[in-house]
């Protein structure tokens, strides 16, 4: 541009605004450069590295050379990987609907309580959400400990035969789901409560005038108006269900056997216990695609809301 100015000094005056426009154009990209550098180093490079790893054989964590698509075909026939995906799905399908129903009920109750007491109760209700997930796992491990735990003591007090929560497959999955209720109902509850409080009042007043009862008002007005909030809450919850790691790692470690080995735990096991980075990398790409699909649902929902 400077060269241009020197060559045609006569028109310098006329084109003077142009460099300023260009600088404004440049400015918006300059602001993005640091982010792109970070993403290049910590996102693009690792992903390319992982893609390369999928074609490498590994022995004791060291690459042993090109193996073609062997890792890919292995993983597609690897029952243990698909089983961990299946476990994640089953746990989501059981836990999330129950959490959703309970959260809507709780939000309806809590929305009627206002003032200082309401505020304090809400703070108490969302406490589990900021507890370090790993500590949550430890707490529930303590509660479900055989003989020494609270669950055991309560079962004995009620005259029941104590359940071996952490020692059996079904018991461990149930224990993880109960812990999940404690951890995630506050999250759903909080979102739904915020949604409830943002609802307009007119439709409810009109319905009262028309003589609709509480149940009719809930089904015909509250739920349809909350649809967007509920969909956002559910998709975020599904995404987080796929991410589950910390609390299960500290509570069951994936056990007994592999009963609670969800996606992240399985990949971590393949990569860091079996030190098989080739197969782990293939699994990463499969998970990557699944997550892109889930995130795009959330993206469409949240952008639609913004408009």
């Amino acid at each position, binding site marked *: 541009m400077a060269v241009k100015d020197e060559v045609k000094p006569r028109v310098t005056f006329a084109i003077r605004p142009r460099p300023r426009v260009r600088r404004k154009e440049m*400015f*918006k990209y300059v602001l*993005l450069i640091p*982010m792109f550098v*970070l*993403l290049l180093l*910590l*996102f693009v490079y*690792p992903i390319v*590295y992982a893609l390369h*790893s999928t074609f490498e054989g590994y022995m004791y964590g060291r690459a042993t050379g090109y193996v073609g698509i062997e890792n890919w075909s292995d993983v597609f026939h690897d029952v243990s990987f698909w089983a961990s995906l299946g476990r994640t799905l089953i746990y989501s399908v059981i836990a999330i609907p129950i959490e959703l129903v309970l959260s809507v*009920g709780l939000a309806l109750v809590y929305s*009627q*309580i206002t003032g200082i007491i309401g505020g304090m*109760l*809400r703070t*108490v209700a969302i*406490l589990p*959400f*900021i*507890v*370090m*997930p*790993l*500590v*949550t796992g*430890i*707490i529930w491990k*303590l*509660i479900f400990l055989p003989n*020494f735990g*609270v669950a*055991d003591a309560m079962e004995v007090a009620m005259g029941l035969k104590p359940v071996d929560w952490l020692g059996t497959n079904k018991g461990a999955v149930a224990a993880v789901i109960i812990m999940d209720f404690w951890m995630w109902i506050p999250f759903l509850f*909080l*979102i739904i409560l*915020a949604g409830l409080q943002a609802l307009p009042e007119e439709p409810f007043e009109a319905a009262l005038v028309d003589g609709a009862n509480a149940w009719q008002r809930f089904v015909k007005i509250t739920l349809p108006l909350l649809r967007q*909030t509920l969909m956002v*809450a559910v998709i*975020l919850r599904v*995404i987080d269900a796929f*991410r589950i790691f*910390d609390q299960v*790692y500290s509570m069951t470690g994936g056990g007994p056997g592999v009963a609670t080995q969800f*996606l*992240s735990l399985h*990949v*971590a096991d393949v*990569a860091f216990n079996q030190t098989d*980075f080739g197969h782990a*990398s293939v699994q*990463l790409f499969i*998970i*990557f695609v699944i997550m892109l699909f889930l*995130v795009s649902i*959330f*993206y469409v*929902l*949240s952008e639609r*809301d*913004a408009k």
Partner: protein
Amino acid sequence: MILFQKCIKWGVVILFSVWTLFPLYWLLITSLKTNAEVLTDPPTFVPLHPTFASYHYVVDNFGVYFVNSSAVSVGSTLLSLLIGVPAAYSLARFRFAGGFRTVVSFIVLSIRMMLPIVFIVPLFQIYQNTGLYNTKLGLIFAYSLVDMPFVVWMMRSYLSEIPESLDEAAMVDGCGRIRTMLRVVLPLAAPGLATTAVMTMIFTWNDLVFGLFLTANSSAETLPVSIIGFLSQYQTYWSQMAASGILAILPMVIFLLFVQKYLVRGLTAGAVK
């Protein structure tokens, strides 16, 4: 009938509060028991001989992990703000050709919501080769990969709510682009900025998984990784583990009180305001 409804309402509230608080109470009393008392059958619901011995043990031996965790969370939060805020400003304020903004926003969001293990496996190998493995700096970089997208996504939403007429007014008064951003727009977004920073801190402080696989010893191990150590190595040190859990939770509870009002927006990545 109304009385009956009230009973149900308060019954639900009390039941839910007990359900929420009891596990935390259990953690607290476990930390005050001796290890022998933790393992009594049936368990005691009030410690017979409350003692702070476990807290002394944790404070004396685990200070280094608190320092590591603080350094990593503060470092990563600062780096993410430094990089993420200008990017968010650009995405919120300027027009881009075609689907550029959509593509960038989607990539950023996807990174935030991806399973951390997806990045950890290649990062582990890269860190082994570059000497970043088991360093606080390496951990700060790794966390900024997931923290920075959160900052971008949140700040984009906050900044787009500040009317652009303010920018124009500032520019008419002779402010340059950078001065407009730093002196006019960002101060107005200060509450959003503070909330975003605190939430980034909470997420990073609470996270186990990056620290677990990218560190090896006390020179970089974070607090959650050290707490996990009680489980595998010292199978029976329940009381000390509970005490370190309580100490790990406390700072975040204080943070919660600051950001509670804005929590929903942070947790839903701005989708619910």
